[in-house]
């Protein structure tokens, strides 16, 4: 049975805090690009972008990334390893945005996709939830909530853009 562990208000506050931390650690947002990992990472990236715009008056570019061709379990030899980000990321501070950080394999694939598209100055990672159980040496720079879980459990992030409401559930 799914149990709500984070409500909409807490989720919004976590995103606001991530936004402040992004400004704090990048010493400003001039050279920033947000890359949202489909599907919910894109919505989170847009929410961070709108907060940055409110605070700093600058529109930070947001790219959408589909990592499917880069997955390490994608054995299709014909997969075209080409991520069309639609923006130039060369020498930019790229912030990868995803909803849940779990094994780290998605993030590895996303980094592959970014490197294929250009050579950024730096890649950081922002996630709404870090649930632990990494299988690769990857960690997030910006974390909304650390939620300790067991491998049997499942974390569901709902966002009002495509789901009914903002919430995070565990089942």
């Amino acid at each position, binding site marked *: 049975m799914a149990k709500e562990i984070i409500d909409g208000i807490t989720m919004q506050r976590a995103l*606001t805090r991530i936004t*402040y931390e992004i*400004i*704090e*650690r990048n*010493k*400003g947002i001039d050279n920033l690009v947000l890359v949202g990992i489909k599907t919910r990472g894109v919505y989170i990236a847009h929410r961070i972008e709108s907060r940055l715009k*409110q605070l700093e008056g600058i529109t930070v570019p947001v790219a959408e990334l589909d990592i499917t061709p880069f997955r390490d379990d994608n054995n299709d030899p014909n997969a075209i390893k080409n991520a069309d980000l639609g923006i130039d990321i060369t020498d930019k501070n790229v912030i990868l945005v995803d909803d849940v950080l779990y094994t780290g394999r998605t993030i590895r694939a996303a980094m592959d996709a970014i490197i294929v598209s250009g050579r950024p100055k730096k890649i950081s990672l922002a996630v709404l939830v870090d649930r632990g159980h990494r299988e690769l040496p990857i960690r997030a720079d*910006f*974390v909304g909530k650390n939620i300790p879980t067991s491998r049997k459990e499942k974390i569901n992030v709902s966002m009002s853009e495509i789901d009914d409401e903002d919430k995070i559930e565990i089942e």
Partner: protein
Amino acid sequence: MKRYLVLDDGFTLEGDSIGSPIIAAGQLVISNNLYGLEQTLTDATYNGQIIALTAPANGASGINPNEYEAINPTCKGVIFNSTAVHSKMERDQSLDEFLKNKDIPGITNIDTRALAAHVQEHGQLKASISDTDDEHAVDQIKALVIQRDLVKQVSTRQPYPNPNSGKKIIVIDMGMKYSILRELSYRDCNSIVVPYNYSAAQIDELNPDGIIISNGPGNPEDVTQTIKVVEELQNNYPLFGIGLGHLIIALANECHISVMKLGHHSTSYPVKEIASGKIEYTNHNHIYTISNHGIRDANFIVTHICPSDGAIEGIRHMYRPTFSVQFDPEAAPGSQDMTYLFDEFLDMISSYERA
């Protein structure tokens, strides 16, 4: 017994005595709190001031000692629109008894609407509670000099711990409301309250995870010692400023502050969080405010404003783990919309430790 409220511009109003019969004088502030009488009267931010409460029927439910924000109230006097006789329970104290015990004079049945309208027009005024309203009384209040050691009067003299097992938070007591400690206790913080003039080296020695600079009375420019301590500590520890503490953080970073024509003294001021556009209601108690000018040069982002007059209500440093708010996130009295800022502070400490 008749008593008079005399302002330093000659404006006077007549009312009935309540509480102590002594004569008192101080800065006049108008509050339209509808509830939280005990919390308002015992808030040390009102040290040296005369509070005018515009709500009717004050004290209808007596005085509840569980809602004190300081053991002894330090306001100079209280002006009431009206007070109510309350039906006495066992061990219960009436408003009149409370004021007499604490030796605070009051006047009730005052036309607070006329008073508020007058203050709205003329700005910051000094006031006295007096037995006469003649020229002599006016001259006396004109001659009153507002004290400059208001923080020293209310800050603790010795440090004391509020032990628990969580993060170690040092609270610099500028006239701290107990609710700040309550909020820290809810979050298992291992807090230590220190006097306003505790040195940076002494605080260093306690090895804090984070530092809160509390609310307090008076002009922040008068507490130069605390400003200097903040200058020395702000690069090494996460800081959270509340009320006077917010202004001290601003001054430690060479921001400018100014006196507002109309101070904010109420439980019901809206505050807008700029990042999300969300409006929440908060308790305010301030006549000083940070000026917009120079805030960006000091590398601060404005995070909260008051939409009704545009006053800056919250700032955050761009590169350091420092944020502060002008309003009272601990509420008491008032809306508890913003108590989550204490969680934000603890999250800030965790992410500072992680980075």
